[in-house]
């Protein structure tokens, strides 16, 4: 009998409570807000954020607890055994309605010109709890608008509802302490000291967490209405952390990236540099057709067609000089499946051991800013290393230089970096490749300088958001991604290119693309019946 008691004492307490009539069990110490989040029950709130400390200032998350005369805030109330909680009772709804009313009395009606429309916390709750005539007939408090806070963020202090999320972010997450709330009462204003810019590498996260249009991203400002965007998940390819992202797109292309929560990788955040990685993926920046440059003259043709021509060229060179006259330069920017396909082609089909690993920043590989951004600017270094070691390919650019000088290689296929910005040595490397008779460059964007080579064939490849694949981040975590959208439909994945190089046909994907979902954000998620 005592063993049973002892065992029971060792078990963690799991208090049971009732939320809107449904009984649930939670870990001891869970707040009501956390329980709502866990069970995905909608609850109105602004200042609470699971990645930040509790502020309890918006007073919107009011719930009625049986036995308590006043409604309580959910974010700071811990659940006790037998608690009966409701946020849909009349009393709770009345508290929320008034809290919302107080938020709106000085809020400027900027919706027609505000980026946040469509994903705005005030709009959400107004549709749910309000839709009433405003009772405040007096003039609203006027504050500063369009305050430039640096390269990426614009502040509108009038729209600000003073939830303090952004201030807590710069205190607790980026630890840069730029933001504060100055002054008192309804004269309070969010801002930086003397409008100093928010130039830390995580500034745009404040835009994500701002429930209203007080903080907006310069990059997205006035570009697109959010209800005309769809979003799907992918990963950021900016560095080896592999933050999970939501890609917002429509037929016009990608408009922005936002972090997606992943407790193992990036938590709730992503860095600003990662947000730029969509820019080189939109169709304006892309190579849409195969480009053949020979002796300064350029012709175009389909990607597939060019790949087939490459296949013929490779076969010819193999017959003449054997597999080792064919070289492959590889960057750590592609998926495991693509490496497997390419390496199988080279090692087995072509019998070539000349696979060279193009390392772009060995010196800063181990760099880490303490939060998310790493010195290795490639999304799949670990995946590439694994694939290389499997095939026992261990040559780097130095060996390549040797072999080129010795005129051993007649054709070099380059799996060029998707993110050319982080490979500042491209033009230098091109000079070396000038001594090779044939260069085939697989790339998403035009590579400048290739027109000066003796012969360069550029084949457009699909970007990370147009394909599925597995990427391994710095920690060794495998992350699978699915296609987000099509930008250049004629481009090839490396797997397809490898198949074509081998002389095979690409299997036809008969599945119709899945429709993207509507804009997702925490407020939408907690919208309830709407």
């Amino acid at each position, binding site marked *: 009998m005592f063993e049973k008691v002892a065992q029971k004492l060792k078990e963690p307490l799991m208090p049971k409570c009732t939320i809107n009539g449904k009984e649930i069990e939670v870990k001891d110490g869970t707040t009501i807000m956390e329980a709502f989040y866990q069970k995905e029950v909608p609850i109105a709130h602004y200042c609470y954020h699971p990645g930040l400390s509790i502020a309890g200032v918006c007073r919107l998350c009011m719930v009625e607890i049986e036995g308590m005369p006043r409604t309580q805030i959910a974010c700071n109330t811990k659940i006790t055994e037998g608690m009966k909680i409701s946020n849909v009772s009349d009393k709770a709804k009345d508290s929320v309605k008034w809290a919302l009313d107080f938020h709106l009395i000085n809020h400027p009606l900027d919706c027609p010109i505000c980026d946040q429309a469509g994903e705005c916390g005030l709009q959400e709750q107004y549709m749910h709890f309000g839709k009433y005539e405003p009772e405040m007939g*007096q003039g609203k408090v006027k504050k500063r608008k369009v305050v430039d806070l640096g390269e990426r963020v614009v502040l509108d202090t009038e729209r600000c509802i003073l939830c303090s999320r952004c201030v807590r972010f710069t205190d607790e997450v980026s630890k840069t302490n730029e933001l504060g709330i100055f002054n*008192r*009462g*309804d004269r309070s204003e969010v801002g930086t000291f003397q409008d100093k810019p928010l130039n830390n590498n995580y500034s745009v996260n404040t835009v994500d967490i701002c429930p209203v249009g007080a903080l907006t991203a310069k990059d997205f400002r006035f570009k697109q209405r959010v209800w005309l965007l769809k979003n799907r998940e992918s990963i950021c390819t900016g560095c080896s952390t592999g933050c999970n992202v939501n890609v917002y797109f429509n037929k016009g292309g990608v408009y922005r990236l936002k972090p997606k929560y992943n407790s193992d990788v990036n938590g709730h955040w992503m860095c600003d540099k990662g947000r730029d990685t969509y820019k080189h993926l939109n169709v304006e920046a892309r190579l849409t057709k195969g480009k053949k440059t020979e002796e300064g003259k350029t012709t175009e043709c389909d990607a597939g067609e060019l790949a087939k021509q490459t296949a013929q060229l490779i076969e010819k060179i193999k017959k003449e000089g054997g597999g080792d006259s064919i070289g492959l330069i590889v960057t750590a920017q592609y998926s495991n499946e693509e490496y497997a396909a390419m390496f199988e082609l080279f090692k087995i089909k072509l019998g070539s051991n000349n696979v060279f690993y193009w390392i772009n920043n060995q010196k800063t590989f181990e760099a880490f800013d303490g939060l998310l951004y790493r010195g290795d600017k490639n999304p799949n270094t670990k995946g590439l290393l694994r694939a290389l070691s499997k095939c026992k390919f261990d040559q780097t650019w130095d060996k390549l230089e040797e072999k080129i000088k010795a005129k051993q290689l007649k054709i070099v296929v380059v799996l060029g970096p998707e993110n050319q910005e982080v490979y500042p040595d491209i033009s230098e490397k091109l000079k070396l490749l000038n001594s090779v008779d044939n260069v085939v460059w697989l790339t998403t964007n035009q590579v400048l300088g290739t027109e000066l080579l003796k012969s360069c064939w550029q084949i457009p490849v699909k970007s990370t958001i147009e394909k599925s694949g597995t990427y391994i981040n710095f920690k060794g975590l495998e992350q699978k991604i699915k296609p987000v959208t099509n930008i250049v439909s004629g481009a090839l994945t490396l797997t397809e290119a490898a198949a074509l190089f081998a002389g095979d046909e690409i299997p036809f994907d008969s599945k119709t693309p899945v429709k993207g979902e509507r804009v997702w954000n925490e407020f939408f998620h907690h919208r309830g019946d709407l």
Partner: protein
Amino acid sequence: MEVKHLTEHYDKDGYATIKGYQKLGGYENLKKALKMKPLDIINEVKASGLRGRGGAGFPTGVKWGFLPNNGEPRYLLCNADEGEPGTYKDRLMMERAPHQLIEGMIISAFAIGSPKSYIYIRGEYFYPKSIVEKALREAYDNGLLGKNILGSGFNHDMDIYSGAGAYICGEETGMISSLEGKKGQPKLKPPFPAIQGYLGKPTIVNNVETLAAVTLVIRDGAAAFRKQGTEKSPGTKLFSLSGNVVKPGNYEVPLGYKLIDLINIEGGGLKPGRKLKAVIPGGSSAKILNKEESEKATLDYECLAQMDTMLGSGAVIVIDDTNCMVDLLGVLMHFYHHESCGQCTPCREGTGWLEKLVNGIKSGQGKLQDIDLIETVARNMCGRTICALSDAAAFPAMSFVLKFRDEFEFFVREGRSKIKGTSYAKMHH
């Protein structure tokens, strides 16, 4: 009749110096306390029924009992912010008897096991601060502070910290935030200060008068302390009388004393030719009493709570019939609007809205529905915020509109004050 227990020697020369204080029995209570067990002191204070004299009236001994029993160092903070309009008793105590406060604090610190205490004094009290600083130096020089106080083995350090002009720093967690070097914004409760207060450590916050009164509990014992006052509100209290009385000032009377006696006897009544109209019994945050209620009220926690107001800080503001209630409400609403810290939405926006509504009426542009709207907005500001400033702003709004509605309606209808001769009848503040 005043019953001068605390203020017995306040008018004696030199009482503010240590020599003057000791000559009249000063620090004897500390000697007595240091011979007691800390838990016994707490129990004695509990038994005395001493209630917080700053405004909330929470039983002091019970508050001390909330501290955890884990030997962790805890802080004692003396709330000398005294910002509640109408209140000026703590200022008197610090100017005339700083050593009484210090003695009370050392006894309390000993009882709760605190090695360090702070007196948080409002920034504008330059003169009282200088008096207290001098007294602190004297205490240190005479072995009453620092290591091994009076050979008891008890170490205690006391320091004084100035505010910089914010009413909200009178709220206990607002004060703690200010002492931590931040804006004086109140903290969420729970956790309560006794568990997690100043810098996350267990903290007790007590008013100046409460801590000084601890010396009386030790000197006379709980039973004798209870001889004054009522059963639920024992002891004497200082009341700050102001407004339209002939003799405003601080008066120490037993709790339960009749409000009208304080006004007419101690206060010397109203100026000739004037009639009593209303009384705010406990600082501007207490709901107002009309003439009939004022004549019935007694100055203790229960009676006033039953009359839907509160004893609060004990600041009795007497209003005669030459005042316009709309005007006075405007003054108060401006105050709360100015002082709201701005953290939580109902208070931040509501205080502004209330001032705008009252000013609208004062300017002659008000509508009849504005009067009901004042009541509605105020009611919905209550009980939904981090601290009680929102309620403090709402209480005057609700009670003025309820009890003096005729004046508000007159102003709306006629575009001017019902009270003739009020110079501020039609002014924006």
